[in-house]
């Protein structure tokens, strides 16, 4: 047994987190900054954070993840990191020439209390930032929230620094996705494209962290939202935030700063989740839903219906980021699967709990935030075994110990590919997810059925 010390009996813990179902803010900020074109993420702290965050994202994407660090030493930790970051800015522009440096912090610089706005101003007045280049910052203390918070903070900082209301009437919608895969960002754009809608999407990591192999390394791949686009977001007619925890901070800031009204939706996962998004998109842009989108919807529904006997009544345990597990819960409900447990290390609030219960019934066990960790998730599973686990790579230890199949979804996925190329959002993502679920249950039937009832056609 890999997790031989996990007892079935659940005891209350208030201080010890075991096998977390979250990680810390800066990695989310790093990921968000990678969704901006020609942007280099910069970690203002000691270099271990930056190495860890780059490694984690690299293992997940199997693609280069570039970021720099202020490399604090003990001296900087006592006297502040201003000299470090000023030197870093000079070196970064001299060597790596990004259009924009997106600075985030770590617990170290947050505890010290480095004033980054002041330091960036100093860099400007001292001429350390070349003509046409930009430096922005966000505060991402690791001791608050989770990686999703860091992603939300960095995304909001792009709005704070760059979005402007110029008065131009741009007939465009802002789309702000939560911490999701590049493949999912592509799929959201695909739906808007099919409906002929003009939009600005940021962050957008598609074609950045799932780039091609063509014999060249590009430090700044072709993808990513441009600063021009982020600037123009202040003149859009509406913002759709997809995923409350990861996307609403930037959407609300666009509302208060530039008077762009916003609507906060769940991630469009599964048929009804995608319906909600398509409907909001249609109304926001004043267009009709295209035949091609209707076709995709119909194809998903067709398979849901045809294969319903294999998903109906199956039980599922979900763990991951709140925005994602909420979407997954919708998907499960649509195909008549019963969700037993929903766990997230990121605190999501009472509204989230209520929404999960509304989707999955009163008996579902929901826990988010402090001590909602994988150890607890495993204990729940020991007490009530589901047919299926949906969660990240770390669930594989539980899956193996308990003999329960796992579908990998969320962050991180260190041991499989596909997540960065194929979506789970939208109708097509729903179809992919459904195929994965059906494969699991039908393979199980093939493996376990007696020979006399081994079916050819299923």
């Amino acid at each position, binding site marked *: 047994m890999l997790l031989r010390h996990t007892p079935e009996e659940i005891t209350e813990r208030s201080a010890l987190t075991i096998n977390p179902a979250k990680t810390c803010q800066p990695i989310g900020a790093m990921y968000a900054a990678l969704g901006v074109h020609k942007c280099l993420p910069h970690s203002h702290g000691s270099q271990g954070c930056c190495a860890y965050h780059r490694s984690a994202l690299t293992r997940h994407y199997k693609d280069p993840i570039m970021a720099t660090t202020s490399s604090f030493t003990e001296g900087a930790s006592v006297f502040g990191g201003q000299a*470090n970051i000023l030197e870093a800015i000079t070196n970064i522009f001299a060597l790596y020439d990004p259009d924009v440096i997106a600075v985030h912090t770590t617990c170290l610089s947050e505890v010290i209390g480095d004033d980054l706005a002041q330091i960036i101003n100093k860099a400007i007045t001292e001429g350390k930032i070349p003509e046409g280049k930009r430096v922005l910052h966000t505060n991402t203390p690791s001791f608050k929230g989770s990686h999703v918070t860091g992603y939300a903070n960095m995304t909001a900082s792009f709005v704070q620094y760059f979005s402007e209301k110029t008065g131009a009437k741009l007939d465009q919608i802002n789309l702000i996705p939560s911490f999701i895969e590049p493949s999912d960002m592509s799929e959201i754009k695909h739906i808007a494209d099919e409906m002929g809608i003009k939009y600005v999407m940021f962050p957008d990591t598609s074609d950045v962290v799932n780039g091609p192999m063509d014999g060249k390394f590009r430090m700044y791949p072709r993808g990513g939202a441009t600063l021009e686009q982020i600037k123009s977001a202040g003149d859009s007619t509406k913002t759709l935030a997809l995923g409350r925890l990861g996307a609403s901070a930037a959407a609300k800031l666009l509302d208060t700063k530039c008077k762009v009204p916003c609507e906060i939706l769940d991630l469009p996962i599964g048929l009804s989740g995608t319906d909600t998004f398509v409907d909001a998109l249609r109304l926001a842009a004043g267009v009709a839903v295209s035949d091609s989108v209707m076709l995709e919807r119909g194809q998903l529904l067709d398979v849901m219906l045809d294969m319903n006997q294999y998903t109906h009544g199956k039980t599922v345990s979900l763990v991951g980021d709140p925005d994602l597990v909420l979407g997954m819960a919708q998907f499960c409900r649509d195909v008549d699967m019963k969700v037993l447990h929903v766990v997230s290390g990121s605190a999501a609030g009472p509204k989230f709990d209520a929404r999960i219960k509304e989707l999955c019934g009163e008996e579902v066990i929901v826990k988010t935030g402090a001590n909602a960790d994988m150890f607890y998730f495993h204990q729940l599973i020991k007490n009530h075994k589901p047919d299926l686990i949906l969660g990240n790579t770390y669930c594989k230890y539980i899956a193996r110990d308990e003999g329960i199949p796992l579908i990998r979804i969320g962050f991180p996925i260190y041991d499989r590919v596909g997540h960065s190329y194929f979506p789970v959002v939208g109708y097509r993502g729903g179809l992919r997810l459904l195929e994965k679920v059906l494969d699991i249950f039908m393979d199980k039937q093939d493996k376990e059925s007696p020979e006399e009832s081994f079916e050819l056609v299923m």
Partner: protein
Amino acid sequence: MDHDENMAVDTEEFKSEMLTRYPAKVAKKRKRQIVINQVDAGEQVPEILANSRTIPGILTMRGCSYAGCKGVVLGPTRDILQITHGPIGCGFYSWSTRRNQTRPETPDSPNYMTYAMSTDLQEDEIIFGGEKKLKAAIDEAVALFHPKAIGIFATCPVGLIGDDVHAVAREMEAKYPDINIFGFSCEGYKGVSQSAGHHVANNKVFTDVVGLDDTPKPGKFRFNILGEYNIGGDAFEIERIVAACGITLHSTFSGNSNYQEFISAHTVDLNTVMCHRSINYLAEMMEIKYGIPWFKVNFVGADATAKSLRKIAAFFGDKALMEQTEKVIEAEMVAVRKVRDEVKARCQGKKVMLFVGGSRAHHYQELFDEMGMETIAAGYEFAHRDDYEGRKVLPNILVDADSRNIEELKVEKDPERYKARKSEEEMEKMKTEGFTFNDYRGMMTEMKDKALIIDDLNHYEMEKLIEKYHPDVICAGVKEKYVVQKQGIPLKQLHSYDYMGPYAGFVGAINFYREIDRLVHSKVFKLTKAPWQDSPELTANYGWTN
């Protein structure tokens, strides 16, 4: 680019070309960290600047002291329960991400390595202190796991807010007298790299763990291996080989290890050192306190393995042992030679660059040598001058301000347990027979003249190296892997072995030969160009023309 062209690169010229892009202050420093190798008759090599602070914004490969302490040294031991004291990230990122495998004795033996434990500090605790929560976390850990030992690892904010992990450890040990509880001040900002964390880990393991139990493992010719972390099963392979020779491996620091092996590690007659950088402190201190001599070994490479085995057998000086060792080597080498000859025919003359942590950039050169491949550039992320130039330069190394706060322990002879394992005469005699104790010759002394030695390589320099030399294979880590492979050059990870292995010992050598052969001759790289990229449109034959 063929062999001769490679050698035609004027390294001095290349070095200055690399430095021109840097701001003056940076160039001045990098100039001392990029060295063109030259080995004189007395094994004198040029001086390199190493173990100095990282240049901000340079895009370094380095990590931090916490990673060196918790992630590297203590992480691989399965039954010391480890609690990260700090916000959630550090514990999360060091959760099963190093491939130090372990094999508990029975299905019920304690193994905490699949668990990441953290105090997950929140803002309130940063403001009002986190000691209370740490104590509560220890209470909860004891209630759930009842471990023999608990290690507490400090992260960046802990040092700043004044939490004292050592005081908490003492207090909790008083509360739970049968549990050994100790803390590590391995805050990420300590020192300049992972290296400081190694030192912090060595000190605490030496003072609070080693020497608590005088029970030796049964068996003859007992020794320890220090600095072997069982990545991909390396230690399993070494265990297999030494057992076949009849040598008793008492404990490994810290691959596939347990607490009992640590506390009784001082009962052996010999310490051997694999990774010099991370563990030489413990080897030195154990010699002073207990009288255990140490020497450097290398189990990476079949010839290096054979050499190391012979050295260990000769140390014990037992005729039967030496004969058995020769028998084992001969038997193992049959398969090794067969595969080696096969791949050497294909790999001879290929060019390699190695940029790995603090020891593998040197060790793995032996394996490449065995395949006829040449190392044209190498460097460490965080090694010190002695790892580059050899321990002979130790007296001249100045500890700079950034590393001054890492404690140097004052060690004395243990009045009861000090026992010189060999008399002074015996040691002298062995030295005349060619034995070298307490020594490591360093990487540069074993590399060719004109090879480039680069400390703390950064992304910009790596790109320059690729552009200039087009090496056949680069060895580095996961952060570099995909950057290099996008350019059509194979990158072999030598931290994680790309989830393969073992690469140590005889079986490991065979695995490595085959793996490098696969990489260097991979057909997939040859598909990089699409067929239409080489033929201009105008000369293409269109389907509808006859």
